[in-house]
C-alpha cells in the first residue's frame, strides 16, 4: 500500500448480540462522513444470541470494488472470533483485542494492542453497554481519525435514549481514544486526508437502496413475509410507503404475499414482495399464474446460503435455477440481477417498469452479501429511470374486450377494474383472446407464442442497456461472464491479474432472462477463454450459458457462504489464462 494513499481493511469479530454490528455501522458511517469510500461485509450466526459476528470495513480514498483480501487491523472482542479470524491478519498488520475476553497471544510480525474494554466500560464509564463505543474510540485513534467523527455518530446513535446516555458514550469514546496513545509505536495512521469531502453520496446497503428505489419507482403495495436476509427491505419500506400513498402488508406466508401482490397489480397498482429461497419456493405456483394470466409482479429474492434452511445468514448465488426454471409447464418471466448497491436502486425501478409494461412476473436476484453491504455510492439520479406505464385499452363495451389480444409485441392492452366496459376475467386456464377457456392445440400454440413473444421484444429492444462490459474484450486472455453481486470483486481481481500480466475483460448481464445471447456470444468471440465465476456449487450460470448460447464457458463455482475473495478469483483468472 502506497504510504500517501488510504486503503485498508478493519475486521471486527465478537460475540453475537454484543453490539459488534452496530460498532461496525458506526465506524463505517463515521469514516464515510470524513469523505472516505467504504465497503463492508458482515456475517453472523443464524441464532439471535451466541456465536461470532464478523464485520469488515474497507476504507479508501478511491472507489472500492470489494471488501478486500487482507486484514490490516483486526479487532477481536471474543475468543472464538479471535481464533477463527486471526489468520486473516496480514503480516505487519495490527491486532487490537479485548484483553478481558481474549487471552494474551504472541503474534510474530504483527503489532498487538490489548485493551481491557470491559473493564474500562464498567469501571471507568459505569456501563458495560458502552463497550462497543470504547472500541470505536480506540479504533478511530488507531487509524488516525479525529475524535469528533466519533462524537457525531455517538450522539446520533444515542440521542433518543437521552442526554445522560450520550454523555456516557462520549466518555467511553474518549476513554478508548486515549487508551490507545500508549501504543504509539503501533499507531502509524492509516488514514490520509481526502482532498474534498463529497456530500453527494449515500452510505447505504443493498436492501435499503432497493427499498428506496422501489418507493421511487412508484410502488403501490408491498406485501411480504419476514425472512432473513430480505426482511429489512420490508422494514425499510414500512415507515415510508404510507407517505407515498402506498400500502404495506405483512402476509401470513409467502403464498399469501404474492397473492396480494397479484391482486393489487390486477387492480392497477405497482406491487412487489421480497423474500429468500424458501419463500421463493413457495411462490412458484403463483409466479406461473402471473406469467400465464399476464399479471405484473415483482419478486425480489435475496439469496442466502445453503439448501432448505441451510445457512440463512450467509450468502450464495444458488437460486438462479429456481428463478429461471421454477415453473411447471412454461410461462414467461423476467429475471434481473443487480450487480452493486447502486444498481439495486435503479434495477428495482426497471423491474417495476418491465412488470408493468410487459405484464410479466419479474424476479430480482440479490443476495445476502449485496443486501447487507453498506458502502458509499454516488447520490442516485432520480431521473435516470423514466416510468413506463401500463398499456391500457380504450373504454369499450363489456363482452367485446379482447384482453389477451394477439399483437406483434405480444403485449395486449390490459384493463384496470373501474375502467368502463372492459370487464374481463383473468384466468390461468388456457384461453383465447377474449379470455374464454379454450383447449385446442391451435389456440395453445397461438397464445403461448404470443406470451413468449414479449420476452423476445424485451430482449431485442432493451438487452443492451442491461449489459455492462469492463475492460477491453478484444484479445483478452480471459473473458469473464458473471452475474449479480460478484461484479466488484471480479473487477478488482481483473486488476490484480493485470498486474501479473494477464489481461481480462468482464461482461455482466443484469438481465438473465431473457438472456442477451447475441451480446454474450459476441463478447465471447473476442476473448480467448471464457471464465464463469459464481457463488454456488453446481455452476448454474455456466450450465445456463451452455444451454442457451454457443459459447464454451469454464466454470468456477465455489460455495462457501462468503463472497469471493479477489485474490482467489485472480488465481483462477491466471489459471484459466494458462490453460
Amino acid at each position: 500500500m502506497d504510504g500517501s494513499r488510504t486503503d485498508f481493511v478493519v475486521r471486527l469479530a465478537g460475540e453475537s448480540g454484543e453490539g459488534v454490528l452496530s460498532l461496525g455501522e458506526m465506524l463505517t458511517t463515521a469514516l464515510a462522513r470524513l469523505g472516505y469510500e467504504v465497503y463492508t461485509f458482515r456475517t453472523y450466526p443464524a441464532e439471535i444470541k451466541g456465536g461470532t459476528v464478523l464485520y469488515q470495513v474497507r476504507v479508501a480514498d478511491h472507489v472500492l470494488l470489494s471488501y478486500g483480501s487482507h486484514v490490516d487491523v483486526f479487532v477481536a472482542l471474543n475468543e472464538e472470533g479471535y481464533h477463527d479470524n486471526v489468520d486473516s491478519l496480514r503480516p505487519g498488520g495490527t491486532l487490537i483485542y479485548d484483553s478481558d475476553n481474549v487471552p494474551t497471544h504472541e503474534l510474530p510480525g504483527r503489532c498487538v494492542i490489548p485493551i481491557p474494554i470491559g473493564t474500562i466500560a464498567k469501571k471507568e464509564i459505569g456501563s458495560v453497554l458502552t463497550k462497543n463505543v470504547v472500541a470505536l474510540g480506540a479504533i478511530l485513534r488507531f487509524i488516525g481519525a479525529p475524535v469528533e467523527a466519533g462524537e457525531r455518530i455517538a450522539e446520533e446513535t444515542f440521542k433518543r435514549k437521552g442526554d445522560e446516555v450520550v454523555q456516557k458514550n462520549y466518555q467511553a469514546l474518549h476513554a478508548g481514544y486515549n487508551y490507545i496513545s500508549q501504543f504509539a509505536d503501533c499507531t502509524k495512521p492509516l488514514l490520509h486526508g481526502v482532498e474534498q469531502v463529497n456530500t453527494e453520496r449515500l452510505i447505504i446497503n443493498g436492501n435499503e437502496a432497493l427499498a428506496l428505489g422501489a418507493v421511487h419507482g412508484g410502488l403501490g403495495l408491498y406485501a411480504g413475509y419476514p425472512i432473513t436476509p430480505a426482511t429489512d427491505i420490508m422494514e425499510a419500506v414500512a415507515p415510508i410507503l404510507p407517505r407515498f400513498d402506498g400500502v404495506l402488508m405483512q402476509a401470513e406466508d409467502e403464498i399469501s404475499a404474492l397473492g396480494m401482490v397479484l391482486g393489487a397489480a390486477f387492480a392497477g397498482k405497482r406491487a412487489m414482495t421480497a423474500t429468500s429461497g424458501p419463500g421463493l419456493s413457495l411462490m412458484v405456483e403463483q409466479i406461473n399464474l402471473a406469467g400465464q394470466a399476464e399479471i405484473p409482479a415483482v419478486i425480489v429474492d435475496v439469496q442466502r446460503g445453503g439448501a432448505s434452511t441451510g445457512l440463512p445468514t450467509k450468502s450464495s448465488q444458488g437460486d438462479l435455477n429456481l428463478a429461471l426454471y421454477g415453473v411447471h409447464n412454461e410461462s414467461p418471466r423476467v429475471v434481473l440481477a443487480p450487480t452493486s448497491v447502486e444498481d439495486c436502486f435503479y434495477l428495482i425501478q426497471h423491474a417495476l417498469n418491465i412488470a408493468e409494461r410487459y405484464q410479466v412476473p419479474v424476479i430480482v436476484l440479490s443476495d445476502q452479501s449485496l443486501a447487507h453491504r453498506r458502502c458509499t455510492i454516488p447520490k442516485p439520479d432520480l431521473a435516470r429511470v423514466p416510468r413506463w406505464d401500463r398499456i391500457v385499452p380504450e373504454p369499450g363495451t363489456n363482452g367485446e374486450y379482447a384482453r389477451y389480444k394477439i399483437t406483434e409485441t405480444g403485449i395486449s392492452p390490459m384493463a384496470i377494474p373501474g375502467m368502463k366496459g372492459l370487464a374481463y376475467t383473468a384466468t390461468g386456464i388456457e384461453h383465447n383472446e377474449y379470455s374464454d377457456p379454450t383447449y385446442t392445440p391451435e389456440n395453445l400454440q397461438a397464445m403461448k407464442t404470443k406470451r413468449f413473444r414479449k420476452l423476445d421484444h424485451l430482449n431485442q429492444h432493451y438487452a443492451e442497456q442491461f449489459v455492462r462490459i469492463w475492460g477491453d474484450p478484444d484479445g483478452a486472455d480471459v473473458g469473464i461472464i458473471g452475474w449479480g453481486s460478484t461484479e466488484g470483486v471480479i473487477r478488482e481481481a481483473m486488476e490484480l491479474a493485470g498486474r501479473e500480466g494477464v489481461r481480462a475483460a468482464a461482461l455482466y448481464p443484469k438481465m438473465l432472462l431473457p438472456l442477451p445471447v447475441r451480446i454474450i456470444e459476441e463478447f465471447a468471440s473476442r476473448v480467448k477463454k471464457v471464465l464463469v465465476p459464481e457463488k454456488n456449487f453446481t455452476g448454474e450460470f455456466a450450465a445456463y450459458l451452455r444451454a442457451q448460447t454457443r459459447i464454451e464457458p469454464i466454470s468456477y463455482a465455489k460455495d462457501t457462504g462468503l463472497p469471493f475473495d479477489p485474490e482467489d478469483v485472480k488465481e483462477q483468472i491466471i489459471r484459466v489464462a494458462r490453460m
Partner: protein
Amino acid sequence: MEHTQTLSVETQPIARQPKDYKSDLEPIWCPGCGDYGVLNALFKALSQLNIDPDRTVLVSGIGCSSRLPGFVVTYGFHGVHGRILPVATGIKLANPELTVIGVGGDGDGYSIGMEHFPHACRRNIDITYLVMNNQIYGLTKGQTSPTSSPMFVTKTTPFGNVEGTLNPLQIAIVSGATFVARGYSSMPNQLARIIAEAIRHPGFALVDVFSPCVTFNKVQTFDYYKGRVYEVPETHDPTDKFAALKLAEEEERFPIGILYRVERPTLDEQVAMIKQRAHTDNPSVEHLFRRFQ
C-alpha cells in the same frame, strides 16, 4: 363502496336487472348443479344493490364453483387453487372503491385455502366470501372435502371418511369475521338477500352456501336438505357471539340466514388511517436520502 353505505336495499331504484349481470359464457356446470342457484342469487343481489359491474371484481380459485366469475359480466380473477383471499385482499387494498367478492368451493376455501381463511377473518378486510359448499370435490370427480360427513364414501375413502368434519362458520366467528351467514342454493330469494347484506356489510363477510353436487355427492342432496334447513329464528341476536356459535353447532338441522353480524374497523379503513397518520406534504425520495448521508 359509497353506494352501499348511502343507499338502502329496499329504496334503491332498480336500474340493472339480474340478467344484465350475465356474461356471454354459458355455465359449464352439470344440469341440476346447485351452483346455478347461487349464480342466480348473485345476479339478483347485484341487481338489488344496483352494483356497477365495472367496479366489481369476483375472485375465484379452482373447482367447478370457481368457474363462476366467467359467467358474470364484472371483472374477474380466476387464480390458482386455494388463494382467493390473498388475491381479494390485494385488490381491495389497492382500490378500496371496488366491490370485491370471493367465490369458490369448500375444497378451495376450507382445505388448501385454510391457510388464509382465519387470517382474512381476523383482518376484517371488507370483502364478501361466498363458498359453494357441496361437501365434496366436484371438479376432480368426487373426493372428500373437509366438510364431508363422517364415513362418507368416495374413491379416495373407500372405507369411509375417518376425518372430522370442519365447521367453517364457527371457525370464521372465532377468527374475527364480522358477518357470518349460511345460505342454501334452493332458497334463491333468501340467498340473494343474504348475499346483498353480506356485500353491504363493512368488513369480512362469509356466506357459506349449501350447493349440492348432483353428480358426485349422493348423500348431501337436495332431498337431504329438504326438512333439514330452517330459517334463523327472528329471536336470534346476531351480535351475540356465543349464541351464533351455538346456532352454528349444527347436527341434524341447519339454520339458514345471518348468524353473526357485528362491526369493527375494517382493514382498509385502518390502512387509510395509517396513511393519514403518515401523511407528509410533497413526500420525496430526495428527502429520504438524508437519512443515508
